[in-house]
């Protein structure tokens, strides 16, 4: 069989990325440029979209150059169709549509959450895992059955990435908050009491955020507060994960998404997986954060399954949930 090549364009939130993936599993190039909000501020959707607009052509040209390919060589153009910030999604979609028409190659809409799972499956070799997807946009525990990913547990309010970002923002740490909080937490020792909210396989983080910010106002040591925040937030999700693992009896656990890079969270899940005699897989650090690579690879899978879209039908879907996506290639 001849190799298929797919260009993937990512633009759901702060990252604009372009990558070319091959159907043999190779990621031929992976270029990104990230919009970084000022300290104390979050992502401003319009500003982020303007950023994406200004870097799009350079990022895409570089993706072709690094792959050593001429644009005509690709077989399909994939783009992150949702979920994400509307203005940001529209930049990626517009560029993808233009390339699809100009190169006369089919357009493939990709669900960004699913793409986090697929790139992790590709790079780890996990086959039938329980998935923990943690990022700025997601905190979900999912399992595949009957053509779709089914949600076993999720956050009932803000995501783990939100929690860390919003905490960092309010306490003067740089964005993205996760790595900053992790660095501070490594020096913390004292456990500060914070609310622990697990509801079955669900978690809720907004109460924890308020309580942590209250402690900050009261003058708690930042290192101890970051330490305690991580311990409580991660333990909650680890517990929900363990409950899902026991209920589904899966033998593999796959951790993916931006927060997957956190070493402390990894070590918690690793210890759970050992208890249940399962295998633990963590997405390669290169692909934990948002990337064109995840879109390009998912694009290959969807393209092979015939899931293309006409340009005039290719609306972005800012609220496209993971459990609404048909995934025929896994069945």
């Amino acid at each position: 069989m001849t190799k298929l090549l797919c260009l993937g364009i990512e633009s759901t939130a702060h990252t604009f990325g372009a990558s070319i993936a091959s159907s043999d599993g190779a990621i031929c190039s992976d270029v990104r440029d990230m919009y970084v909000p000022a300290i104390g501020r979050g992502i401003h959707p319009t500003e982020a979209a303007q950023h994406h607009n200004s870097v799009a052509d350079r990022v895409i040209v570089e993706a072709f150059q690094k792959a050593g390919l001429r644009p005509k060589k690709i077989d399909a153009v994939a783009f992150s169709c949702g979920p994400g910030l509307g203005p940001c999604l529209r930049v990626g979609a517009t560029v993808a549509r233009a390339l699809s028409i100009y190169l006369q190659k089919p357009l493939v809409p990709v669900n960004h959450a699913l793409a986090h799972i697929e790139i992790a499956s590709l790079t780890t070799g996990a086959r039938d895992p329980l998935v923990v997807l943690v990022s700025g946009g997601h905190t979900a525990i999912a399992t595949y059955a009957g053509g779709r990913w089914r949600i076993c547990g999720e956050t009932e309010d803000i995501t783990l990435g939100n929690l860390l970002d919003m905490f960092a923002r309010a306490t003067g740490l740089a964005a993205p908050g996760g790595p900053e909080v992790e660095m501070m937490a490594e020096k913390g020792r004292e456990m500060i009491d914070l609310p622990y909210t697990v509801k079955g396989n669900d978690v809720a983080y907004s109460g924890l955020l308020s309580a942590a910010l209250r402690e900050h106002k009261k003058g708690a040591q930042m290192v101890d507060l970051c330490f305690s925040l991580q311990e409580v937030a991660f333990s909650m999700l680890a517990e929900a994960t363990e409950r899902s693992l026991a209920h589904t009896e899966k033998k593999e656990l796959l951790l993916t998404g931006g927060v997957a890079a956190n070493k402390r969270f990894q070590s918690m899940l690793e210890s759970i997986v050992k208890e249940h005699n399962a295998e633990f897989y963590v997405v390669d650090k290169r692909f934990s954060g948002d990337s064109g690579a995840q879109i390009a690879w998912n694009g290959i899978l969807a393209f092979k399954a015939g899931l293309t879209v006409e340009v005039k039908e290719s609306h972005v879907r800012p609220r496209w949930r993971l459990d609404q996506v048909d995934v025929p290639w896994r069945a």
Partner: protein
Amino acid sequence: MKLIRKGAEADLYLGNWHGREVIVKKRIQKSYRNPRLDYRLRVVRSVREAENLHEAKKAAVPTPIVYLVDKENTTIVMEHIRGLRIKEILGSLNREKRESVCTQIGRMIGQLHSISLIHGDLTTSNMILPDDEKIFLIDFGLSFHSQDQEDKGVDLHLLKRALNSTHHEYASDSMRSVFQGYEEIVGAEVASKILKKVKEIQYRGRYFNERT
């Protein structure tokens, strides 16, 4: 004692208690969790579980008899209910039988909620069907008292999602039967309010589009 199951938060042993066959449920230390936080959670949950396994009986919900609570060692000794978990059998039942099981589950939840008891972790793993066809409810570690519609709604929402993720082929039919049983106990007016709440809670999940 023989280890018969490693649950999510406890090890279950089959033991003997003055000639009775019993389950010894030991909440074990979680090495991933900060020791102080871990111990606090295990003690609270052991006590809560024992209290509310008993409390549920006041609402005529079948639960195992508690023989001993060892708070310091976060261990409960309770009656051994022989039978299969609903998770294991739901798929093999015919439609009629499945609906009757789900209606019974709904009634049970209605009974609990009528005395303001929230289970907190309703899944088909936490229900046992013995031979005499009366479902037993177990695992009360996350249970608590509340009169809030919100908490009752979350309780049912969790069951709905457990059905969707493990029994997707007949999840919506099953949930309809659950609601039917629930309504029989709490009445149509309360049931419709809680049902509305369940929908609202579901839409709090990430990226739910209210228009769909």
